[in-house]
């Protein structure tokens, strides 16, 4: 078998595995050249952007850097990872812009715990607002050093020099100096200049343009190796024994027959039982031949989920009297519960892990949004110091918040340790459905009242699904919101935009209903009750593009809208639906989404993120739901868990609102939040039926009111 793991730039020397890269040792690892770096601890002193990061940062350990070698190769190191959000492209653009080089001149080394700085993880739409400005300043600082070196070389004073395609140009004699020759035999390492002049967004030539996906050709030719594709010499395939249902305990297991299969090795460590074989089919066969006995524990019946979430929440804080009084005294009011199902991320590449032990050193390749988190999980699993564990994260087959953990990598490492050979564990689709984690289910209880055209009381409780997006953006007196932690019958975790998908559905449904009670146009009602100008701007932009005031072509058509401010992004989605008068079948005809996230780094990729968010949100809005009962997930297959397909796509339109005067924020999450309430409100507009549950219409048929 071939060793297909060659993702290191050839200029790299192997760093000392015992330590991170310090200023002192830098060039020993990097080779000669010029570099700029920043250190979290330095950076933290100057900016309070990273709450909680302090504890993780090691003093004097470089946290990210850009290096120019004497061949002119430019390498950027960051702990962020690429899971399809195309951040590799937009970060490369940022660096290319400041260094006056084509994007092809730059290599980003990402998510390798030995080579790249500690990073909490790639989630929460944080890469663009946090990492892009740092890399921009680091690249600009590097540019200034290169200019200074050129002045020295030519014995020039503080004259203006121009840069082009990786060269500095002499102002008089037309001579050029390449970055490589400027870096030759140098050992110049300087901290990023916090006050360095960066290129104004109005003058961007690379950032702000639709640069194509970096290494795009590797992905459409099948050359890119995802973790599940990787192979090591002498590698075997591993499988792990799973409980039949959640919460079952292994009583005993007979592995005799499994072990008799040719080439099969059985690994038993307490409750962990796994097998390895020369191919995945034999491993699966061996697994199936294990005769295991399980003791089930009482689990929540699926039809009692929402009662359970409320009952297990425990005591709740008292709601302020001003809020309840205002509600009691109001004449126009609404109160309703919303029920939100568990849904699955369904990354098309299920979890995969590949592990190799060399003595007491462990290497793990796994598709995760948190390579450093997985390194910590491995540290605990094997009680070995972090320095002996290297986690690699090759560009991965998506995550959507669903790959914060490292299960497959840990399983592969356990099997590799026991068998003494490299092991790859690729989860099946069923395993990914059953043993990863879900977007939480939730019960949301809202009470709201109007005085005139204004919201005079707002009480909002979220049981279990989470606090993200729980704060209403609407002005008004007497607000109260609380997130109640509950016991979740299924394993749950992060998701694209987290609980915003649930909370904004409830907020935007109730606000729409209030507008109806006030006999005010829902768009005008929102504009009247919102203060944030950025949010109002996307509503107006989407409304205009949608043609909010146009006449409906038929009485069974409905228009609906929703808006949200999530993680620095501002989004409004307008939807048009039709409900068949006879069959009551719903058709989503069109969706217009306007989005603003500051200065746009890559319009094409931004549009793709918005479209992807809206369509993924369409699944959760209409039909995605994890079906379960007493610990058993019963639709753990793509034939039974429905995700959006080509035929589900309505006419899509995206309106990009570019604010070059504002810092860029992330875009991978916010645009998912508004499609569900927009459709819900459009259905109400069409046929006067108000829906309160997600998914709204698993059968595709709108009930009669």
């Amino acid at each position, binding site marked *: 078998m071939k060793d297909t793991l060659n993702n290191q730039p050839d200029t790299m020397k192997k760093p000392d595995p015992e330590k991170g890269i310090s200023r002192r040792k830098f060039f020993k690892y990097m080779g000669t050249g010029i570099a700029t770096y920043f250190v979290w601890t330095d950076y933290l002193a100057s900016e309070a952007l990273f709450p909680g990061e302090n504890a993780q940062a090691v003093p004097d350990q470089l946290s990210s850097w850009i290096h120019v070698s004497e061949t002119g190769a430019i390498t950027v190191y960051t702990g962020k990872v690429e899971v399809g*959000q195309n951040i590799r492209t937009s970060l490369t653009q940022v660096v290319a812009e400041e260094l006056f080089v084509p994007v092809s001149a730059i290599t980003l080394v990402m998510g390798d715990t030995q080579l790249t700085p500690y990073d909490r993880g790639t989630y929460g739409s944080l890469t663009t607002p946090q990492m892009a400005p740092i890399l921009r300043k680091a690249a600009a600082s590097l540019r200034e050093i290169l200019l200074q070196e050129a002045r020295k070389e030519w014995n020039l004073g503080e004259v203006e020099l121009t840069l082009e395609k990786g060269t500095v140009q002499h102002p008089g004699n037309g001579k050029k100096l390449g970055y490589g020759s400027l870096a030759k035999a140098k050992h110049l390492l300087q901290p990023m200049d916090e006050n360095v002049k960066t290129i104004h967004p109005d003058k961007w030539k690379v950032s702000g343009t639709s640069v194509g996906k970096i290494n795009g050709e590797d992905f*459409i030719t*099948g050359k890119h190796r995802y973790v599940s594709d990787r192979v090591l010499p002498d590698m075997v395939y591993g499988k792990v024994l799973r409980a039949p249902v959640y919460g079952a305990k292994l009583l005993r297991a007979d592995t005799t027959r499994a072990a008799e299969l040719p080439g099969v090795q059985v690994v038993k460590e307490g409750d962990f039982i796994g097998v390895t074989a020369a191919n995945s089919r034999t491993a699966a066969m061996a697994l199936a031949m294990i005769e295991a006995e399980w003791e089930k524990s009482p689990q929540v019946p699926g039809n009692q989920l929402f009662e359970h979430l409320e009952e297990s929440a425990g005591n709740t804080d008292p709601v302020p009297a001003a809020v309840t009084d205002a509600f009691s005294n109001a004449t126009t009011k609404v109160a309703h519960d919303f029920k939100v199902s568990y849904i699955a991320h369904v990354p098309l590449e299920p979890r995969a892990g590949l592990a190799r032990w060399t003595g007491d050193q462990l290497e793990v390749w796994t598709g995760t949004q948190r390579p450093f988190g997985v390194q910590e999980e491995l540290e605990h699993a094997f009680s070995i110091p972090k320095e002996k564990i290297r986690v690699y994260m090759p560009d991965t087959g998506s995550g959507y918040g669903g790959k914060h953990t490292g299960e497959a990598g840990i399983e592969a490492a356990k099997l590799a340790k026991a068998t003494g050979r490299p092991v790859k564990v690729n989860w099946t689709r069923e395993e990914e459905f059953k043993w990863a984690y879900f977007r939480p289910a939730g019960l949301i209880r809202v009470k709201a009242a109007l005085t005139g055209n204004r919201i005079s009381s707002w009480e909002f409780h979220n049981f279990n699904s989470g606090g993200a997006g729980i704060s209403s953006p609407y002005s008004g007196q007497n607000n109260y919101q609380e997130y109640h932690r509950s016991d979740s019958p299924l394993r749950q975790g992060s998701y694209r935009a987290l609980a915003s998908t649930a909370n904004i559905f409830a907020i935007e449904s109730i606000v729409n209903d209030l507008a109806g009670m006030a006999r005010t146009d829902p768009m005008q009602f929102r504009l009247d009750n919102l203060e944030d100008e950025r949010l109002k701007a996307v509503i107006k932009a989407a409304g205009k593009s949608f043609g909010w005031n146009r006449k409906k072509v038929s009485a069974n058509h409905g228009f609906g809208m929703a808006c949200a401010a999530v993680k620095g992004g501002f989004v409004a989605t307008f939807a048009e639906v039709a409900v068949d008068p006879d069959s009551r079948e719903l058709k989503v005809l069109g969706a217009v989404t306007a989005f603003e996230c500051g200065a746009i780094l890559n319009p094409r990729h931004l549009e*793709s993120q918005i479209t992807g968010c809206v369509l993924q949100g369409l699944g959760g809005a209409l039909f995605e739901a994890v079906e379960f009962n007493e610990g058993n997930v019963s639709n753990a297959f793509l*034939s039974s868990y429905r995700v959006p397909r080509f035929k589900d796509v309505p006419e899509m339109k995206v309106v990009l609102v570019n604010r070059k005067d504002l810092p860029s924020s992330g875009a991978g999450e916010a645009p998912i939040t508004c499609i569900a309430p927009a459709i819900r409100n459009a259905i109400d507009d069409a046929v006067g039926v108000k829906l309160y549950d997600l998914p709204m219409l698993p059968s595709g048929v709108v009930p009669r009111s």
Partner: protein
Amino acid sequence: MKISVNNKEYTVEVDGNPSLLEVLREQLDLTGTKYGCGEAACGACKVLVNGTPTPACITPVTSVQGKQVLTIEGLETEGKLHPVQQVFLEEDVFQCSYCAPGMIMTAVALVENQKAMGEQEIIDGMNGNICRCCTYPAIVKALHKLTQTETKG
């Protein structure tokens, strides 16, 4: 047993009746063809068998004996991308791209069988393939552009 993949003859192990997907990925190291669901519901593993898009995950390798298997790795001719690959690259359609090989193989058969397709025909032809990043509109737009161009030419 011998099978023909990308115009090359390979001798493969068929003990235990492996799927075509397993043989491609684990015996021939042709990992461009992906596993997505194991039940022909997502299209990630589609390859062409005598020109027909076929889910490799549920296809026993023995059933392709004497047939021509084409995978994503065999699509380029003389170092040139297939027009479907080319248009997907130009239009920059994908995000994580894990679905890309299956999408491309399905689309190759679709455009070769039918020129000048309308968007609805493309949607109908591609509906068996899932892109969980939901880049569907970009895929349709790219294929539509390709088929219109091909007709003109």
